[in-house]
């Protein structure tokens, strides 16, 4: 396998350096194989960079002694890893059946209207918001649950969305 970075003009800034590298060492100590640290390592990358680029994947692969292709196969399997930059506020609205019958589609609509994001999946023109519909967030009794970044918010109804958007703006 040959890996070339010829097309890259700007220098790559490693994620795993200094404190973050120490964090990776701690993660590695929890598992008997290096590869097992992949999911946690990807979470660290996403926390540090907001999303996971191909170059990031190559860096993680290198750090864990696996190939970039293996990393990419994993990144594309798990829906919570961003393969593209997303808005500063990443909003996940559950729209699976139990929430759907409790009005989840209205919540999505309200978020799109309030943030100016065009469609589910698109980022608002100001770059602040990405709204997506997700499958079951595991809080069906608290319909509609919404994840705004790492904040899990229960019982969201369309009329509560304006306040939420104000709060995170």
């Amino acid at each position, binding site marked *: *396998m*040959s*890996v070339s970075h010829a097309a890259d003009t700007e220098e790559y800034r490693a994620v795993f350096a200094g404190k973050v590298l120490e964090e990776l060492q701690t993660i590695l100590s929890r598992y008997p194989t290096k590869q097992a640290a992949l999911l946690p390592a990807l979470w660290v990358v996403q926390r540090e960079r907001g999303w996971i680029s191909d*170059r990031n994947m190559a860096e993680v692969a290198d750090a864990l002694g696996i*190939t970039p*292709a293996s990393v*990419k196969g994993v990144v594309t399997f798990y829906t919570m890893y961003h393969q593209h930059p997303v808005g500063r506020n990443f909003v996940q609205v559950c729209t699976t059946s139990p929430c759907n019958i409790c009005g989840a589609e209205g919540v999505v609509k309200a978020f799109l209207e309030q943030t100016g994001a065009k469609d589910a999946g698109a980022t608002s023109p100001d770059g602040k918001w990405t709204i997506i519909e997700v499958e079951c967030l595991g809080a069906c009794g608290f319909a509609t649950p919404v994840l705004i970044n790492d904040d899990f918010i229960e019982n969201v109804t369309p009329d509560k969305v304006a306040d939420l958007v104000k709060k995170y703006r």
Partner: protein
Amino acid sequence: MADQLINLTIDGVPVSVPPGTLVIEAAKQAGVLVPHYCYHPGLPVAGVCRMCLVEIEKAPKLQIACATAVTEGMVVKTQSVPAKDARQSVLEFLLINHPLDCPICDQAGECELQDFVFQEGRSGTRYGEYAKRFNPVEDFGPDVLYVPNRCILCTRCVRFMDDLAQEPVLNVSERGDRAYIGIHPEARLDHPWAGNVVDLCPVGSLLSKDFLHKARAWELDKTASICTGCSQGCSVTLDTRDEVVVRVRPRPNLDVNRYFICDHGRANYRWMNRGDRIEAPLVRRDGELHATDWDEAFARVLGILRGASGKAVALVSPGASTEALDLARRLLSAFEWTGAFQVVMGEEAPLPGVPNLALRAERAPNAKGAEQLGYTRDYAAAVKAAASAAVVLVLDDPDCPVETAGALIYAGTVLPPETACRAAQVVLPIANVAEEEGTFVNRDGRAQKYFQAKPAPGMARPAAWVLGELAAALGVAEARQ
């Protein structure tokens, strides 16, 4: 041993197999091919295509033959209604997003999807007017294209790269019906054994650029041969169309190359088709080489051999057949003879997942055979000795830097403009490996036969025939071991 075997019946046929045998392999012994895609005997079991579902008596549901080990008294039914229905439904599911572009697909005619649909698929589609999944063709590596629309996600390619090549550059990306075979954008499928993914792909999803749109599978004649790329001696098939070699593919040989060949061997065939061949025997007359017939050429050679004495030197190709090398030795047996060969060296490239399988540094198929017959590797010394030898025989070694005061006899396939062999008294046109039958001895001492795939051009004949005629005339052929 017999009491250690497991007895079972498959479609009513009793078979006995060693413990641990998979049902799909045991079925082969019963003459039953269980349709399958992801299973390949050379790869770890994946059990994902679910095509090989069979009914096993007493099992609560259908089982996959590729991941079920035999048990004593097992009764397997591959043709029961539930088993056939299940397989038919897998075929239906595999086809709903398939482009059905067989007319322009390289795999057509040797496609397992085509074959099994033909055998037991539905006659029509129930998918209706739904749009099919579409992804563009991708360039995976030097010789591999990926056509995702035809992909059935059997993952043979991924497992080959993971477990055999041990360079996991392929993956399954995304999930559900959005899944496809992926490669990291900065990686290339350029492992020295990567081309095997094309053979392993049961459909027309992974294609060889070299073979792209070159021929239809049913137009090809297939000939068992041995790869000449190195001293490993992999079993191959030469695919010819209209007497032109168009493709080299691995031929299963569990002792040497299992199911695989390297990319070097795979690409090593164009020279077999070269057009600048010697097509007639040539003899030197008035200082010039003139075309003639075999009778005159033989007469000239016999004249040289009978009229000379003292030292003789044979400079031979380590790609010549054992038969030819043996006869060359015999022709010179009346002399004080030395024979030598030289081997082109390259980089060794193992296939890590298979013990003792590599593209060998020694890029010649029969160096071992030559050695066993008394030829040495001291080529320089032989070339030096040739200067003062009475007779020098060059066998298929056109670039040989030979200079001799004696008589030079050259048996070869080509006669390049600048070659020293142009000084020969007689030039004997011979067949190349694709044009003759013969034997190579690989690096481990295994003698392996190869067969003729196409005719030799013009009057060229296999070296063993040419040298055999001469040896017979000299009365030295009978003593063959």
